[in-house]
C-alpha cells in the first residue's frame, strides 16, 4: 500500500512540475488537474470514500473556474525567457548558481525539519490517536449515525462545520464585492 501510494504521489509531483513549467496557461491548468485527480485515487486507496466523492466534484468545478478565468487572456503571456541572459556572459553566471544553491539548501533544511517533526508518528498504517478510539467506540451509539464521518462532522465537531459555513459565506461575499463593476445606484 505504501509503495502504491508513493508511486501515485510521484506522478502527482511530475504533474505539478509540468503545470509550473508549462508554456501556455491552458496546459498549466489541465496539468493541475492531474494533481487533483491523483488525490482522488489516493483517497480511495486510503479508505476515505467521502473525501473521494467531494474531491472529484470540487476538482472539476475548480477546473471550470480556472478555464473561465484564463479563456480570453492573450496567448503570449509566458513567452519571455525564464532566466535573463545577458550578452557576452556564459549561461552559468553567478545569479544562476545562487538560485540553484538556495533552492537546494532550503529544500534540504525543510525536509530535515519535517523528518524530525514526524518522528512522533508511528510507522505508516499503525498510527492510532486517543480521540479516534473514543469516537469509533462510542460514535455510532451516541449520534445514531451509521457513517462515522458525518456523525463527527455534525455532532461532536459542530462548531467546525459552523465555522466552515461562515468562511464559505464570507468568501462568496468577497467575490461578489470584488467582481462588481458598477456600484449599486
Amino acid at each position, binding site marked *: 500500500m505504501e509503495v502504491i501510494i508513493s508511486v501515485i504521489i510521484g506522478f502527482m509531483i511530475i504533474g505539478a512540475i509540468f503545470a509550473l513549467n508549462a508554456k501556455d496557461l491552458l496546459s498549466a491548468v489541465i496539468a493541475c488537474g492531474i494533481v487533483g485527480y491523483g488525490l482522488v485515487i489516493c483517497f480511495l486507496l486510503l479508505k476515505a470514500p467521502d473525501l473521494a466523492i*467531494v474531491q472529484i466534484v470540487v476538482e472539476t468545478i475548480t477546473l471550470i473556474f480556472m478555464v473561465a478565468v484564463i479563456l480570453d487572456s492573450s496567448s503570449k503571456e509566458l513567452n519571455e525567457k525564464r532566466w535573463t541572459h545577458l550578452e557576452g556572459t556564459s549561461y552559468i553566471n553567478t545569479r544562476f548558481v545562487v538560485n540553484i544553491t538556495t533552492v537546494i539548501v532550503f529544500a534540504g533544511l525543510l525536509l530535515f525539519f519535517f523528518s524530525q517533526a514526524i518522528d512522533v508518528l508511528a510507522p505508516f498504517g499503525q498510527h492510532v490517536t486517543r480521540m479516534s478510539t473514543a469516537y469509533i467506540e462510542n460514535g*455510532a451509539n451516541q449520534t445514531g*449515525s*451509521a*457513517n462515522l464521518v458525518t*456523525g463527527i462532522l*455534525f455532532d461532536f465537531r459542530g*462548531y467546525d462545520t459552523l465555522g466552515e459555513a461562515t468562511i464559505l459565506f464570507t468568501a*462568496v461575499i468577497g467575490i461578489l464585492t470584488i*467582481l462588481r463593476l458598477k456600484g449599486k445606484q
Partner: protein
Amino acid sequence: MTSIVKTVTRLVVGVIFIYGIYIILHGHLTPGGGFAGGAIIAGAFILLVLAYGSDMLKLKAKEAGSSVMESLAILAFLLMAVVAFFLGTKVFFHNYLPKGIIGDLISAGVIPLYNIAVGIEVAAALFTIFLALVIFKEESK
C-alpha cells in the same frame, strides 16, 4: 452550444440533480453528505448554464436568488443549533431528536436536517461564485 450538447444536457442534468439529493439524504448512512451532495447539485446547475447560456437579466436574477438561498441555509443551520440550546441540555449542537435504529433512513436525530442545510448552502455558494464570474466576463466585453 450545439444542439447535441443541449440535448445531452437536457437528458443528463435531471439525473445528476437527483443523484445529488440522494447523496444528501443518505449522508448519515452511506459515504457522502451535505458537502458532496451540495457540490454535485452545483455542478448540475453549472452544466445547465454552460450548455444553454442565458441573457444578462436572467443571470442576474439567478445570482440574486442563489445568494438569498445561501443566506437562508446558513441561517437555518444556526437556528437549529440555537434550538438545541433551549430544548436540550443547554449545549449548542445537542442532538435532541430521537436517535432511532442505526441504519434506518429516518434516524440519527437532527443530523439529516443539518445535512440538508449544509447541502443547500454549499450548492448555492458554488453556483453564486460561478455566476459572478460569468456575469463579470459578460459585462467587461
